[in-house]
């Protein structure tokens, strides 16, 4: 699959689920991870729920690779900053002028868990669901079609755009633009990139609008869909169950304080 989307086509049960079910699950796990207290909650959800789901969907290897690749700068940052600059607390050890604190480490651990959960949650969803299938389901449930169009188009356009930005950046580099160095140098690298990119794309807006109008985008007819989205009574019940459980988790959170 081209790098245009994270979606990884697999013949798995997870992939065959209705996209709204999967999306509800994603949101449910998110609420669970953020609402339930404790520094281990996020990690528990990751190991007990997300990993088995990923195995079911035959995407565990991809999931792990992507999540670790994108989360390490954050985790590194959070550990360094929170442990070293925590302020008052229990000192773990001392070296030179630094005295990392236990409370800071715990905070960093919790924060990392949260971010890992959020990332794994959404990436698992993206790996197992083609975005337009979700939009089609939501449209059938009443979502404003313009919104569905915006979301899917954005997902396809962003990587295109980034490629364009990269091309401009490389072209400028070839002309001698410096992108490494002190802050001023890096800042100056921005402007010759931003202007052509933005203005060029704005000029495309009118043609693109004409192109979809030419495909009867604003037709008053009732839309049909080429793709058929599977659903089942069981899934409907599970979705309602998740909403209830999510509300429960929020209640627990409020009561815990």
């Amino acid at each position, binding site marked *: 699959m081209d790098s245009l989307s994270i979606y990884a086509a697999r013949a798995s049960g997870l992939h065959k689920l209705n996209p709204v079910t999967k999306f509800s699950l994603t949101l449910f796990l998110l609420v669970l991870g953020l609402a339930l207290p404790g520094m281990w909650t996020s990690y528990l959800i990751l190991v007990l729920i997300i990993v088995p789901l990923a195995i079911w969907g035959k995407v565990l290897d991809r999931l792990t690779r992507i999540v670790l690749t994108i989360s390490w700068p954050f985790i590194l940052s959070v550990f360094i900053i929170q442990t070293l600059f925590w302020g008052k607390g229990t000192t773990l050890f001392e070296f030179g002028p630094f005295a990392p604190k236990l409370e800071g480490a715990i905070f960093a651990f919790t924060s990392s868990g949260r971010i890992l959960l959020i990332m794994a949650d959404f990436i698992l969803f993206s790996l197992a669901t083609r975005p337009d299938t979700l939009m089609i389901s939501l449209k059938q449930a009443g979502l404003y079609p313009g919104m569905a169009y915006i979301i899917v188009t954005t997902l396809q356009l962003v990587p295109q755009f980034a490629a364009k930005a990269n091309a401009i950046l490389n072209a400028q580099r070839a002309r001698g633009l410096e992108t490494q160095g002190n802050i001023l140098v890096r800042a100056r690298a921005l402007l010759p990139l931003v202007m052509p990119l933005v203005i060029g794309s704005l000029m495309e807006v009118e043609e693109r609008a004409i192109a979809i109008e030419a495909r009867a985008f604003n037709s008053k007819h009732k*839309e049909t869909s080429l793709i058929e989205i599977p659903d089942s009574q069981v899934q409907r019940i599970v979705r309602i169950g998740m909403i209830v459980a999510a509300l429960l988790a929020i209640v627990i959170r409020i009561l815990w304080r």
Partner: protein
Amino acid sequence: MIMAIINLQNVTYKYPLTDSPALTNINLQVNEGEFVAVIGPNGAGKSTLCYAIAGFVPHFFKGELTGIVAVAGVESHQSSLHEWVLNVGLAFQNPFNQISGAKYTVFEEIAFGLENIGVPRDEMKSRVTDAMKLTSISDLADRSPYSLSGGQQQRVALTSILVMQPKVLVLDEPTSQMDPIGTREVFGVIRKLSEKGMTVVMVEHKVEWIANFADRVLALHEGKILLAGKPGDVLTSHLLTDKGFGISRYTSVARKAKEMGLWKKDGLPVTLDEAVEGFSQGRENLAPTQK
């Protein structure tokens, strides 16, 4: 009298916030199955003419439109744009901008228009399959539209319009952004469609190609029709060079040759074949060793 399928009478149009009209007093009747090519320098109003036939002028661009623009007997200002596009298909230069972005495969991309007008699923599938066969892109069905070459994308765009079964096809410089291979592919499709009886209005710069395939040529200049008639007549007229049109290099060479007495035929050539044929006729005058 056969009623023209495209009928423009005294059409004048001004874009909003502009002082001078983009089109003035355009009169054009196109019969069913005809292939009309439109030529002209930049700013002549060629794109505006396309938009007028396709209904985007005035519905999309607003502005002031006077006169009659009718396709198959229905006037454009009496229709809404989303109904009008079902009768008139429009494709233009930039293939990338014609991809909706809302679909992940070529097959679905082509079906996009049919989904919007509510065609039942089975009919959609057969219409898309047939249209893809017509434009020879059946092998691209599962590809992402963004992974295609320019020529392929343009053919997908054409197919996406064709699948809606318009009565008339309007093409605004469909090969201007193509490489030679892409150009050949796209021209191939357009020619096939025309031979099957589709009414086509096409803006194009590649004069040699027009000469071979167009039934009629329209030369636009500053929003008015300068010349209209058979390709052979229009494309070799002096008026074109006077007004700054690009003309075929064969024409300019032959014109020079005519001045030097080396071109014996009456009319001037537009295409390579015509030039070869015309120059061959003058070979009787050459010395035997040069034959």
